[in-house]
C-alpha cells in the first residue's frame, strides 16, 4: 500500500514542474526504491523500460523541435537542423518531457511490478476497501492471462497450417479480426469455467469474507509514505 502511495506521489511531483532536474532526482529515487523494495536487479531495469524506448525518444525529440522557445529570437541557437533552430531552453524543456515519461514508467513498475499480485489484491481490499468481486475477479483473470497468450499463438499457428496467408492490408485486417473473434470465444469459455469454479467455492455469496493473509498498515508503511513525500518535496524544492 505504501508502494502505491509513493508511486502516485512521485508521479504527481514529476508532472508539476517543467524543470528537468526534478525528474532526474525522482528517477534516481525510483530506481533506488525499485532495487530495494521490489528486488529488481539494477541491470534489468532498462530492459523493462525498453518497450517505451521509442516513445520516450520520439517525444523528447519532438518536444525539443517544437518548443516555443525556438521561435524566440532573443535566445541564441545552440544547433540548427535545416530551417529549424534549437535553443538551450528548448532542449531543457524537451528533456523534461522525456524524463517525465521515464518517471511515470518507473512509478508504474514500482506499483505494479514484480510485487506479488495477490498481495496487491489483498491490499486493495483490506486497506483501500475495494469490493471483493472486483479485486479477486481481476486477480483470477491475471492468473489465467498466460493461457491467453498461449491461445493466441495456437490460433495463429492453426491458421497458418490451414494454408491461410493473408495478402494485402485488407486481407490482413480480416485475418486479425478472425483471430480476435476466436480468441474472444476462448476467453469467454475459460472465464465461464473459472467463474463457475469460484462460485462453487462460495465466492460472492453474500458473506463477508475473511482474509488468510493479513495486511495491516504499520508504522513502516507510514514511514515509507512520509519518506516518499519528503523525497518528492526535496526533488521539487532543492536548488540546482
Amino acid at each position, binding site marked *: 500500500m505504501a508502494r502505491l502511495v509513493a508511486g502516485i506521489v512521485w508521479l504527481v511531483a514529476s508532472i508539476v514542474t517543467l524543470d528537468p532536474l526534478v525528474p532526474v532526482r525522482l528517477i534516481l529515487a525510483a530506481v533506488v526504491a525499485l532495487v530495494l523494495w521490489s528486488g529488481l536487479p539494477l541491470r534489468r531495469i532498462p530492459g523493462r523500460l525498453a518497450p517505451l524506448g521509442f516513445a520516450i525518444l520520439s517525444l523528447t525529440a519532438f518536444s525539443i523541435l517544437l518548443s516555443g522557445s525556438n521561435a524566440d529570437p532573443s535566445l541564441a541557437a545552440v544547433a540548427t537542423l535545416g530551417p529549424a533552430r534549437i535553443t538551450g531552453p528548448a532542449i531543457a524543456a524537451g528533456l523534461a518531457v522525456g524524463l517525465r515519461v521515464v518517471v511515470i514508467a518507473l512509478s508504474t513498475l514500482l506499483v505494479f511490478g514484480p510485487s506479488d499480485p495477490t498481495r496487491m489484491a489483498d491490499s486493495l481490499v483490506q486497506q483501500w476497501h475495494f469490493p471483493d468481486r472486483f479485486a479477486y475477479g481481476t486477480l483470477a483473470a491475471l492468473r489465467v492471462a498466460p493461457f491467453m497468450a498461449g491461445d493466441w499463438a495456437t490460433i495463429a499457428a492453426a491458421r497458418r497450417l490451414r494454408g491461410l496467408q493473408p495478402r494485402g492490408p485488407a486481407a490482413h485486417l480480416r485475418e486479425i479480426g478472425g483471430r480476435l473473434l476466436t480468441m474472444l470465444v476462448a476467453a469467454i469459455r475459460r472465464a465461464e469455467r*473459472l467463474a463457475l469454479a469460484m462460485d462453487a467455492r462460495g465466492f460472492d455469496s453474500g458473506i463477508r469474507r475473511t482474509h*488468510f493473509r493479513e495486511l495491516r498498515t504499520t508504522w513502516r508503511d507510514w514511514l515509507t509514505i512520509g519518506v516518499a513525500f519528503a523525497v518528492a518535496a526535496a526533488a521539487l524544492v532543492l536548488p540546482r
Partner: protein
Amino acid sequence: MTTVQEGRIALESATPPSIEADGLCWTYAGRSRPAIEGLTFRLEPGRVLLVLGPSGSGKSTVARALAGLVPHVLPGTWKGTLRVGNLDVAQTPARLLGERIGLVFQDPDSQLVMSRVDDEVAFGLENRAWTREAMQARVPEALARVGLAGFERRGTMTLSGGEKQRLAIADLLAAGPGLLVLDEPTANLDPPAMHATFEQIAGLARVRRHTIVLIEHRLEAALPLADDVLLLDESGRQLAFAAADAVGPEAVGLLERNGAWVPRAWQGVAVARAHEARAAEARRSTEAGALLLEAAQVRIAYPADESGTHLALDGVSISVRAGERIALVGPNGAGKSSLLFVMTGLLRPDAGTVRLRALPRDGEAGETMRDPARLRAGEIAARIGLVFQDPELGFVARTARAEVSAGARAMDRGRGRDAHDAHDDHGADGVLAHFGLGHLALESPFRLSQGEQRRLSLAALALRPPAILLLDEPTFGLDRRGTEAVLRLLDDLRAAGQAQILATHDPRLLPACERVVALDAGLVVFDGAPGAFLATPPYRPAGPWRDGVALAIEPSGGGVDDTPGRAAAPR
C-alpha cells in the same frame, strides 16, 4: 450444520448427507430441451454414487445441481425436488449449500484461482468467513491429506497436472463438506496422475465419512469404488439407478451404448473377436510407404528458460512414412506438443534438422525434402495438418460448411488458382455428411457440441487431406462412442495413404496404432510395436501405463497383463 463459527474442526466432521431426487428436471435458459429429466433416486449417507452417461447427457448438470450452482447461479427452469441431507436445494440459499458440498471439475487450470498453493486452499475458507487462526491450522492439514504437505509456498502454475488436481481436492476437503462431487476429475491426466487420483478417491470412500458422487466413464477404475450407479441417456433422462453390485456383464450393451468403457473382462467372445480383427487390421503394415518426414537430433529449450538448460526436446529423431499410424505417448510435459510443433515448422529447433517432403516448386522436377518452417502456408497445408486439443482454437470460418471448404480454398489460392470451384462446395457437403455433420452445415462451429466440434476439426482437413495428419489429444473429452467415431474416420483417411500421428497420454488408443513412440523428459525412450510397449512400459512406475490399457477398446494381443492390481471387476 453451522460449523463455520467454531475455530478448530476435524477434517471430516460434517455428517455425510443423503441425496434424494424426485422428478428432477432442469432446462438451461435459452435451450428448448431439458438437460436432465425425470431423475428420481435416493442415495444413502456415506455411499459412493457413480454417474454414467454419454457426452452431453447432463452429467455435469447433475453435479451443478448438487452444488446448488443450478438453480442459484445459472439461469433456467427447475422442476421436481432435490434434497441434500435435510436441505432442499431449490429453496436453500447458495451459501448454506456451499458449506456442505464441494465440487471438483475436470480441468485443473480452470478451477484454481490463486497463484500460491496456500492462498488457493484458503480461498474457499475465506469465502465462508473462517477465522484466520482456523484457516492457518486447516491449510496444512488439507494439503497433508492429499499428499501435498510442504507445498504451501509453491506457485500453482509450477505444479504438474496431477498435483493440481490433488490441490483441487485439498480445496474441496478443506471446508469439511459432507458431500464431495467430482466431475470427471481424471479426464485431463496422464496415467500415473489418473491412478493417483483414483487412489485418493478410493481412500476417501473407504473412510465412509463423506457421501461421494463421481462422474466418470472409465468403469474399470470407477466401478469398484462405487456403491450405486446412476445411468443417464443422451437426452439426460434416467435410464437406471442400481446398486453397483447389480451391474454386471449383461449390462454391457446398455453401458456401451451410453458411452461407458466397460471392463474388458465383461466383453463377450464375439465382441472380443471383432475387436481383434480391427486390431489386426490396424497393425497390418502397408508396404514401406514413402518417407514423408524426417527429424534428426532435434533440440529445443523451453522458451521461458534463458539459460537453455531445460530442454523440451533433447536430441529427438523420428521418421514418418506414408500410411503409418504412430501413437506419440508420454506424460504431460514430456515434449509431445513441442515435437508436433517442430514437425509442422511452427517451432524452430535450437539444434537438429527437420525435413518434410514438399511438393515441387516451379521449375523443379520432383518432390524434395524441405525445412517446414520455410514453406509457404499453401505448401504446408498440403503436406501436414494439425488438429488441436481444443478444436475451437482451430476454427477459421463462420459456418461448418465454410470451415470444411476453407482449407481447399486456401490451397487453391496458394497455388494460383483463384477461381473457387462450386464443385468444391458439393465436396464440402459430402464431407460433412460423411462425418455425421450434414445437418449442421450452416451452424457456427462454436455452437456445436464437443463431439461435433472434434469431428468438424477433422472434417476441415478431409476435403484435401494432407499427407501427414497430426492430432493432439484427439479423444480428450470424448466418451466411448465419440472415440470410436473418431477412430473410424481416421481409418478412412489412412486407407487413402495418410500418415497419422496421435499425440496422447491415453493408453486406450495404443492398440489402434501400429507403432508407438514414447517420450520422457524430451528424449525418445521407446519406438516400436504397441504390444511391446504395453508389456513393459518404459516409465517408472510402469503400473498405471499398463493398467490404463485394460480400459482399451480392443485387446492388443499377447503379452499384456489382465486385470489391474486393485479390486477385481464385479462378477
